[in-house]
């Protein structure tokens, strides 16, 4: 099977088991959103897909090859990940931080190639932070900093891009900027997987929705099929009405 596929994963931390028998196929070239209540195992699944969480059982495959059998650098050239927590080295400028995204593409020599430079420039442009290039990270607002971190991951130039709740600390306008950017990246041919809190945003921007509850995938498919009043009631425990979004026509959840 091509692309990123999880087979029958058991995931957990210490004594606690988060998921068992978890399987998922990421549709290539599409924007997939993972939704579900807090602590349903969304982030843990995402971490397993990017080698940050070793599965107790089962395996994650990239184009049919177990991730564990690939060299970390090789995986890093194909899968990019924006975590929830990052550390900005004190005093680093935006450009220099974004350049760090080129790490998996560079060998032990110190040369910085035109390909590297082009990738960094493109990432700065794509995320709209080119004007901030010479600023220091600590001078930026939360929304700006988040875009810079995303630029760093974009500079990695991976065909797959996974993001763990990237909109959490952004104000509303920046949330939509980021979602539109993800849609553009999808249009440019990248495969995007994003954990989102807001079901309406997920339904509007994703091609493929994965709804999780208590460590299991409860439903997966096109937003119009997945987002129903019954499912929202079952997954989030919220009585609601699902109506068409007046702007995009995608399913929209309105609580009772």
């Amino acid at each position, binding site marked *: 099977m091509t692309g990123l596929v999880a087979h029958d994963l058991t995931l957990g931390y210490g004594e606690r088991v988060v998921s068992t028998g978890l399987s998922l196929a990421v549709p290539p070239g599409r924007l997939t959103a993972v939704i579900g209540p807090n602590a349903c195992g969304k982030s843990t699944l995402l971490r397993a897909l*990017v*080698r*940050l969480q070793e599965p107790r059982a089962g395996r994650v495959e990239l184009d049919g090859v177990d991730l564990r059998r690939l*060299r*970390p*650098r*090789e*995986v*890093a*050239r194909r*899968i*990019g*990940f924006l*975590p929830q*927590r*990052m*550390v*900005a*080295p*004190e*005093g*680093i*400028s935006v450009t*220099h*931080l974004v*350049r*760090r*995204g*080129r*790490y*998996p593409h*560079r060998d*032990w020599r*110190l*040369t*910085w190639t035109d390909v*590297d*430079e082009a990738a960094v420039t493109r990432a700065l442009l794509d995320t709209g932070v080119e004007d901030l290039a010479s600023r220091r990270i600590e001078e930026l607002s939360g929304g700006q900093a988040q875009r810079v971190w995303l630029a*760093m991951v974009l500079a*990695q130039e991976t065909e797959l891009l996974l993001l763990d709740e990237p909109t959490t600390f952004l104000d509303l306008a920046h949330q939509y900027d980021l979602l539109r950017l993800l849609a553009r990246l999808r249009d440019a041919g990248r495969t995007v997987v994003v954990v989102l809190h807001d079901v309406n945003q997920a339904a509007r921007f994703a091609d493929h929705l994965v709804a999780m509850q208590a460590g299991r995938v409860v439903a997966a498919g096109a937003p119009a099929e997945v987002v129903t009043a019954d499912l929202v009631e079952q997954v989030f425990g919220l009585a609601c009405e699902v109506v068409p979004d007046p702007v995009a026509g995608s399913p929209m959840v309105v609580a009772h």
Partner: protein
Amino acid sequence: MRSVLGQPGGPRLVVGCVGIVVTGLLVAFVTLMHGATWSTPGETLAGLLGHGEQTFVITRWRAPQVSAALVFGAALGLSGAVFQNLTRNPLGSPDIIGLEASAFTGALVVTACLSGTAAQVATGSVVAGLAAAVVVYALARKGGFSGMRLVVIGIAVNAMVTATNQWLVIRADLEVAMATTAWSAGSLNGTDWHDVRLPFALIAALAVGLALSARTMHQAALGDDLATTSGVRLGPHRLALVVLGVGCTATVTAVAGPISFVALAAPQIGRRITGSAGVPLLPAALTGALLLAASDLLAQTLTRPVPLPVGMITTAVGGAYLIWLLVMEVRKR
């Protein structure tokens, strides 16, 4: 602005580094002039080039100690930068978290028990330093590599190990005790070329290893998650850094005894002077060399004609820096 290194570069880094090097060499030159009587700059230069009556004194007596101050200072600076990167904390340096004191324990034990050739002492020092690193990490395990927990546990280990060292010196045979008293304060006095050949070679090798690990080290500074997903093998990388970092501090300690605070202060001063991001290695090494050379000059001249152990100077100056740093760190929280 485009640097070959792909790391923060540019004019400020170059100017900063050149400034540190020039100052360091000036300090080294003044130290070369110092003896029972001061030589003139002309005499010193002639002596260095192998002319004049002072050649022997300058190249055989003074030069080894000055070189040791520069090279050992650089090694301590490197070691400090390595551990500050590993712990992501400006307090996480080997002299604060007990690695240097433990390396000295190793050196003392080997000296007291086996007669102790230079190579044996260096080995004992490295082994004890690594053992201490394992102990500190094991005790701090819950908090991981970064965070205050490791630093606080390291400070406690440092206190216990320092006490053990004092006990070892007191309990040692009179002969050993006499020899180790100055050593245990951290001293470069009386260093000759024979003493520094092996440590210089070791430090050169360790520095090459660190230069090759530098880019990965800076990538790891972005947090465990991003480091891993951008292709860093954190486990092997950290192991390599711990070995190289302990190697640097232990090699110095085996010869000169525990010289505190250079490893703590040099990386932070270096990064400020050069306006660098994170804690880079080169400014740390250069600043370490300058700091130790300047401290040694003070140690030799403050109480002329009897020189002080350089460790006393670094501790006095560094102690003040540590207080300032602690206040700043507490304020951040």
